[in-house]
């Protein structure tokens, strides 16, 4: 059996080529590296082509339609999904029976409500777009909940309140400026797409702050804390933007 054409046969080669040709038993390093490189390029080009082809038409249509405030519905460098993704997090207790929401801090009348009382407050159904910092956007998502502004009104904010800290299970927090949190589309939400929130989306109740990256919309919500000074939350203290405006691409600090 002839040895490899590319190099002289060594003793080891001879041992390995007793029964079979060298090329079928042993891939040399150069061939291996060549194969790996070619595979990587093919995968990268294939993946990019797939992503571009899949999203392009929908992306153009969405980007073409402006929001009422004039900004494009699709923030820069986002792609479209049809439903929100879970995105992890340390899950809280899904029990509506044990749920309590504490509204406290720089308020005249702090209070705590259970799930039944939350359902008795004025309910808002809204359709809005949400944007994740990992670059997906979901247009026209349907939510039901109670406005944070209504909860703030019931607690009677002190003039010193300037920030809102959403408190959630396992110590997770996210901070939002008061003017952002009191917008009419900011909710304490308990239904998504007509159904109760699923476990992976923070049942029984989560925050919904549609105009900021979605990590601000804390899942498994347990409290709303009004404060006079800013307190960067879980992701904000790990290198992510303090404000998180998707149209300014405020992803990182």
């Amino acid at each position, binding site marked *: 059996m002839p040895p490899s054409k590319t190099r002289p046969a060594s003793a080891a080669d001879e041992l390995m080529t007793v029964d079979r040709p060298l090329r079928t038993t042993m891939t040399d390093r150069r061939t291996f590296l060549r194969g790996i490189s070619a595979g990587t390029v093919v995968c990268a080009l294939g993946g990019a082509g797939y992503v571009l082809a899949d999203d392009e038409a929908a992306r153009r249509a969405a980007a073409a339609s402006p929001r009422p405030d004039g900004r494009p519905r699709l923030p820069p460098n986002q792609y479209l999904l049809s439903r929100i993704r879970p995105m992890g997090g340390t899950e809280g207790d899904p*029990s509506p029976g044990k749920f309590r929401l504490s509204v406290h801090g720089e308020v005249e009348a702090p209070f705590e409500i259970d799930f*039944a009382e939350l359902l008795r407050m004025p309910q808002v159904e809204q359709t809005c777009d949400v944007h994740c910092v990992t670059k997906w956007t979901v247009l026209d998502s349907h939510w039901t909940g109670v406005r944070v502004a209504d909860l703030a009104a019931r607690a009677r904010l002190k003039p010193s309140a300037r920030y809102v800290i959403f408190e959630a299970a396992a110590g997770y927090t996210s901070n939002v400026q008061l003017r952002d949190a009191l917008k009419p589309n900011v909710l304490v939400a308990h239904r998504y797409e007509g*159904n109760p929130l699923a476990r992976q989306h923070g049942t029984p109740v989560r925050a919904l702050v549609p105009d900021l990256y979605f990590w601000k919309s804390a899942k498994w919500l347990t409290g709303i804390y009004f404060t006079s000074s800013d307190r960067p939350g879980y992701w904000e203290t790990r290198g992510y933007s303090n404000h998180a405006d998707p149209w300014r691409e405020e992803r990182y600090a």
Partner: protein
Amino acid sequence: MPDYADATVPARRKRTTVLPRALLRAIHRDIGYIGVGLTLVYATSGLAVNHIADWDPNFQNVQAVHHLGPMSGDDEAISRAVRQTLAIAEEPRELYRASPEQLDILFEHRTLHVNPVRGEVLDEGQRPRFLLRLANWLHLNRGKKAWTYVADAYAAALLFLAISGMFMIKGSKGLVGRGAVLVLLGMAVPAIYVTFAGGP
């Protein structure tokens, strides 16, 4: 010629020398062995969490709608009927009546949202990916405290492995041969990415 055969010359101690490269290879190998477990944890979790926008690396999420027909009776009776129809042996941990059209039956990893009026059951839950969830928990350092020291030690070990790896086998051209090209290529990857992506 003097005859030294019978001379009482003290025997010279045999010197055992350990070559630096051989020592480096031995240390590299042993640290590599120690790091196998942690590498599996961090690498698999890294792959899983990198693609968190595409899947849930901690749970398999399941959702289904069952049409069972209108139901009557108190919450307990409805719960029993639904569990019997869906062949659920697990005892619920909670029944919660949110409204006349919503009765929630909670289990450990599953919730049935029952609409007794319409006779529909939204069945949603999660099945933990046991090993991957554990790996993610460690990787993301949810435990904090002591694990921080383990992670720091592992990071230091990786630095050692990376640097020592360059010197383990002497190339025919030393540090300026193919090894240098590959090292520079590896370093160029983040540099090129930052250049084109604009950096932080």
